[in-house]
């Protein structure tokens, strides 16, 4: 297994290199010039030209890439065109925020969705099944920005229980920080829970039809043991893949939720960088997101091996 991990880790390098080239080229292919956007309608052509020179945008694109990738290899991701903040610092700050919310949201979603999917399948075609599926479809159908705004309306405006905007890191003030996390985490968890629960239900239904489950029941095992020991574990595989994809997606930034709740996460950093054509930040974000996906995929593969002893890496 360790050889597999080492091989996959080594494969990250060419993957990320290809990603870096694609990202670098595509960003520059879209119209819009960071110097023009920064200077807006106010400045002279000379000022735009001076700013392009200052930002190094007047050099040929391959030269710009060579300089950037050279710096990246030494750990320097550059500085933001828009704010002058070092990109690595911005990514580190924002990733911490996003990772906190993602971890909590995934945790809540998994804790609720796995049992819900299992029960829905076990109680197939009953009211419980219909209720679980109905709620799942409802949350899947609701746009996250609408769900977020409704939460703000209910919990911040109407009840006054939770703050509508702002963010306090839990590393600075644990209890205070949690208050700011409740609504964004709930918004993400409800939507993602629906996805996982439906996947878990479908997979459980398949496993429940298999002969070894009938055998387990026939030998007199209590239903709870049949479900937890024989069904759940075998139904988890595809759900883990989905959870991995969700994890990668959320770590890459839940920009809509972050925008609605004013959370300074990686998603907002990415969106702001796109609008400002902040090339260094954009490149750094996309490279980081690619890195996260590669890592999550590796972890999902490893999880398969743990969950299903038949899988050999």
């Amino acid at each position, binding site marked *: 297994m360790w050889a597999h991990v080492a091989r996959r880790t080594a494969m990250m390098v060419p993957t990320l290199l290809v990603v870096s080239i694609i990202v670098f080229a595509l960003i520059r292919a*879209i*119209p*819009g*010039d960071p110097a*023009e*956007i*920064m*200077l*807006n*309608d*106010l*400045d*002279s*052509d*000379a*000022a*735009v030209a001076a700013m392009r020179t*200052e930002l190094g945008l007047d050099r040929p694109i391959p030269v710009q890439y060579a300089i950037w990738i050279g710096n990246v290899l030494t750990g320097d991701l550059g500085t933001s065109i*828009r*704010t*002058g*903040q070092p990109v690595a610092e*911005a990514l580190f700050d*924002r990733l911490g925020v996003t990772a906190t919310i993602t971890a909590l949201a995934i945790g809540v979603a998994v804790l609720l969705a796995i049992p819900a999917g299992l029960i829905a399948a076990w109680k197939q075609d009953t009211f419980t099944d219909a209720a679980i599926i109905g709620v799942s479809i409802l949350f899947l159908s609701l746009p996250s*920005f609408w769900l*977020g*705004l409704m939460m*703000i*309306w209910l919990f*911040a*405006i109407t009840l*006054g*229980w*939770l*703050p*509508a*905007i*702002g*963010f306090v890191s839990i590393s600075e003030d644990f*209890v*205070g920080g*949690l*208050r700011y996390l*409740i609504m964004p985490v709930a918004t993400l968890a409800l939507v993602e829970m629906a996805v996982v629960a439906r996947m878990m239900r479908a997979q459980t239904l398949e496993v429940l039809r298999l002969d070894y489950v009938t055998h387990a029941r026939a030998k007199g095992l209590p239903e709870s043991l049949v479900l937890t020991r024989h069904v759940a574990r075998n139904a988890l595989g595809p759900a883990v893949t989905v959870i991995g994809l969700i994890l990668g997606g959320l770590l890459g930034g839940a920009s809509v939720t972050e*925008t*609605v*709740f*004013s959370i*300074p996460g990686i998603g*907002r*950093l990415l969106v*702001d960088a796109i*609008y*400002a*054509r902040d090339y260094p930040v954009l490149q750094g974000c996309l490279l980081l997101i690619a890195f996260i996906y590669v890592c999550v995929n590796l972890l999902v593969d490893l999880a398969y091996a743990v969950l299903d002893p038949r899988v050999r890496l």
Partner: protein
Amino acid sequence: MKLVATVALATSALIALPSIAAAESVLRVASTSDMTSDNPGVDRSGFSDTVHLNIVEGLVGYKDDLSIGPVLADEIQVSEDGLTYTFPLRQGVLFHNGETMTAEHVLASWERLMEEETGWRCRDRFDGSGRLEVTSVEAPDEATVVFTISEPSPLFLKDMARFDCGATAIQHPDAWADGWQGPIGTGPFRFVEWRPGERIVLEKFDDYVADEGPRDGMTGDKTPMVDRILITIVPDAASAKAAMRAGEVDLLDISTSDADEMREAGFDVLIQPTPAWGTFLISRHSERMANPALRQAMAKALDMDQLAELMGYEAHNASPIPPISSFYTDGQDRTYGYDVDAAKALLEEAGYDGTPIRLITSRRSATMFDQAVVAQAMWRQAGIETEIEVLEWGTQLDLYRSGEYDVMSFGFSARLDPALSWDMFSGEQQRKVWADPAALEKIGMLMTETDPDARAAISDELMGKFLEQVPAIGLYSQPTAIALSDRVEGFELWPGGRLRFWQTSVSE
């Protein structure tokens, strides 16, 4: 059960916490924009300027009537030939680090701004690469600074006071010792913290030395009256309004179209006309739009009063000079004349065959998009077909710079002098829509003429040509709107548009 009880207890403890448990007075501001840096006049944006101008001050500043008054200067003395400006400094003014401001600090600040590597946005206004050159800056004594310029200019002081120039801030040299360290100004608030995308915190400068006279634009009494300004960055406008309704925000910059909604929700709403100008630019690089009859038809086909009303504005203004300016004379208060029949006749004269005209817009602001949609309907009534292309702002700016469009829904930020108002869309550069040699000559005269009456006459002549040639269709001077909670006292908007946090208090 025990677990459920524990969770319930913890949850109730969390939600019972007060939002802000502070004895100090805090003005809570929400902004949909963030700063781009804490370096005034160097890395800036409209919102950055707002924050910076509460922290730093220059020798001069704009007043409510958009004329210039002293700020750190005690007075402004201009020599008879208009070439020498002497600024006796106000005495006893302190920097945020406690040191007293002297002429030496003014010289050091000026030298730093004029160094190329500083990247000051307004360097080209003073270094001779434009019309004007500051030929010398001297300090005959500790309390006086003398600027000498190359030719008389009505713009010298106005450029010094410009918001995007950071008001040519006088700062303590420690601010840039060993690289940029953060602003050390003389303003009413000290810079405390900026967390990009999250919040900006300013703190009352207890030793602020206020000028005499009432609050007047960026001049006069600027005494800070709250302990802290907490600016929370809320990128989503709907969330920002929700936060205000939840009682978490005291001051919010809103769209004028939201004014009624916020008033109904019980907030005070202030609306102030500014020199920002909404327009439809007509590219001079478009072959089709080169026909003046077609341009005139487009202008005459718009019911300007209705358009302004639909956008939530008080009145139409075809002129780039704002009505609040002393240069807004009867000569500026003229328009195209809404006349659909005349528009149709002009279309016939132009030989317009009904081919759709490309109308570029974006959702950068609601107005920029909405005015395009409303105008499209009005043009259709006159038989002018337009095809709206909604672009992302960066892409629209690309087209603006290149002139590769037919018509563009656009908005110019505030220009505070008639020469700058006409210049913003006139010239030989690709992006400029008006390159008529006679008009450019007049604008050149506006740049150097110092007599206000003569300048007003030139500006009026330009207005006549502008209405006749229609290089752009002027729509309105755009107001700014602010919603205030009932905690806020003393806050006022002003024609310059930038928010002033001084002379504002909050009640508990």
